[in-house]
C-alpha cells in the first residue's frame, strides 16, 4: 500500500501539470530549497538566506508577519461580511442583526473581523516598539520607519472607519466624538482656534459629508473602510516589505 502511494507520488511529481505549477523538485536539497523561495510568490518576499539571529523568535516575535497576516484575515472576513451588509441608515443595523442570527457563521465572521482588528492595532503598535527597542529605525532604515508609522496611522484609520458601520449606539457616538475633533482643527475647523470656515465648509463637513453623522457619513466611511484605506495600506505595505530587503534585510548588530 505504502509502496503504491509512494509510486503514485513519484508519478504525480513527474506529471506535466505538477511540474508546471511547482517548477522545482521536492525541497530536500539546498538547490531546491533556494528555488522554492525564488519561485513562490509569497515566499519570495523573503531573501534566500536570512541572518540567523533574525530568525530567532525572541528577536522579532513575528510581529510584523502577524500584523500582515491579521490584515489578510481582515480582508477575507471583510469581503465575506460585505455580501450581507448594506451601508444605509435604513438597513445597516438590520443587516448586523441578520448577520448575527440568519447568516451561517455570520456572528463568527463578525467576531473574527472585530477581534482581529483589535489584534492588528495591538500587534502593529508592539511591532513599532520592537523596531524601536532594537534600534532598527537607524540609518539606512529611516525611510522605512516613516512608512511604518504611516501604516500605523492607516491601521487606526481603518479601525475607526470600520467602527461606524454597525450603526449602533456605540458606533454612532464614538464616531460623533471622533469626527467632532476635526471641527476643532485650527484654521480649517469651524470651531477651532482662528477658524475661517463655516460649519458647512470645514473639514468635519468633508469628513462626514453632512453637518451631522448621516447617510452620507455612513457611505463615506464604508467606501474608505472597504476600498480606499485598504488599497493605500496594501501600497504602503508593498513599499514597507520591499524596503526591508533594500535597506539591508533584517537589522542586526554590525
Amino acid at each position: 500500500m505504502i509502496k503504491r502511494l509512494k509510486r503514485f507520488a513519484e508519478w504525480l511529481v513527474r506529471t506535466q501539470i505538477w511540474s508546471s505549477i511547482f517548477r522545482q523538485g521536492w525541497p530536500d536539497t539546498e538547490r531546491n530549497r533556494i528555488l522554492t523561495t525564488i519561485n513562490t510568490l509569497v515566499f519570495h518576499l523573503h531573501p534566500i538566506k536570512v541572518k540567523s539571529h533574525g530568525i530567532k523568535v525572541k528577536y522579532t516575535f513575528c510581529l510584523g508577519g502577524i500584523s500582515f497576516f491579521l490584515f489578510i484575515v481582515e480582508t477575507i472576513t471583510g469581503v465575506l461580511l460585505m455580501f450581507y451588509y448594506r451601508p444605509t441608515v435604513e438597513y445597516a443595523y438590520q443587516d448586523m442583526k441578520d448577520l448575527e442570527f440568519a447568516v451561517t457563521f455570520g456572528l463568527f465572521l463578525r467576531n473574527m473581523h472585530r477581534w482581529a482588528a483589535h489584534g492588528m492595532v495591538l500587534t502593529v503598535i508592539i511591532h513599532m516598539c520592537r523596531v524601536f527597542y532594537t534600534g532598527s529605525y537607524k540609518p539606512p532604515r529611516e525611510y522605512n520607519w516613516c512608512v511604518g508609522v504611516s501604516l500605523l496611522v492607516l491601521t487606526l484609520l481603518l479601525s475607526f472607519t470600520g467602527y461606524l458601520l454597525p450603526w449602533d449606539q456605540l458606533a454612532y457616538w464614538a464616531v460623533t466624538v471622533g469626527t467632532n475633533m476635526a471641527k476643532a482643527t485650527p484654521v480649517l475647523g469651524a470651531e477651532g482656534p482662528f477658524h475661517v470656515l463655516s460649519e458647512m465648509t470645514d473639514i468635519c463637513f468633508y469628513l462626514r459629508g453632512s453637518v451631522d453623522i448621516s447617510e452620507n457619513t455612513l457611505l463615506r466611511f464604508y467606501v474608505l473602510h472597504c476600498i480606499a484605506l485598504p488599497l493605500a495600506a496594501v501600497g504602503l505595505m508593498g513599499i514597507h516589505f520591499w524596503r526591508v530587503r533594500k535597506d539591508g534585510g533584517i537589522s542586526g548588530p554590525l
Partner: protein
Amino acid sequence: MQEQQPETRITSSDSKQKDTASETQKKPDKQLAFPHLVFKEFIALMLVTLVLIIISMAANAPLEEEASPTKTPNPAKAPWYFVGLQEMLVYFDPWIAGVMIPVLIIVGLMAIPFVDKNPKGVGIYCFRERKFSFIIFTIGIVAWFGLIIFGCYFRGPSWLLYMPWESWDIHKPVISKGTYILPSFIGVPATIGYYVLGMWLPILLARNFYKTLGSTSYFITMFFVLSMFGFIGKIPLRFIFDIKYIIHTPWFSI
C-alpha cells in the same frame, strides 16, 4: 591536587565559554529562508489563527441598540485605541487633544530616526548604549497605554472617576468644577519659561548631549520631549489644583 582544583574550575568555565563561542561560530551566519524562517512563520500564523478562532467563539463583538441621534449613551467611550486621546480631552481643549497631540505624536515618531544621532544598539535589545532614547520612548508608550487603561477602567458615567470595582449605578456629583484659569501674567511666562529652561538647562548641564546631537536635532528632540512631558504634566495640575487653562485667550486656550 587540591591547590589545582580552583584552577581547573576556571578552565572548565572557560572551556564552557569557548564552547558557546565555537557554537555560535559553528552556526552559520545565515540560514535558508525556506524552510527555517518560513516554517516558524507558518507556526506563528497557525497559533494566531487558533487564538483568533477561540476568541471569536468565546466572545461576541459588541452590538448595542440601533443608533439614535438624540440619545447619547452614558458614558460614550471611543474604541480603546482612542480612549487615550479621549482621556486627554478632559485636560485639554479638543483642538489640542484631538488634533495637535495626534499630529505631534505622528510627526515626532517620524522624526525619531533623523534626530537620533546615536549609531549604537542596532539589532539588539540594548539599554546601556542608548539610555536616553530608551527612556523617553518608554515613558511615551507607558503614558499612552496608562491613559488608555485609565480611560477604559477608571471612567464611568459622565466620564467621572469610578473605580473598576465600583458600580456605575452609584450617583456621583461633580466635585471638581475644574474651572480655575491661571491669570495670564503667570500662565504665559510659566509656559515660555518651561520651554526655554527645558531647552537651555540641558545645554548647560549636559553639554556633551547637546554637542553630539547638533543644534537642529537637539532643538527638535527637546521640543518633542518637552511637549510630551508638558502634556502629561497638565494631568496632575488638573487633578490637584483644578487648573483648567494655563493660557487663556479669546482665540485659543491651553
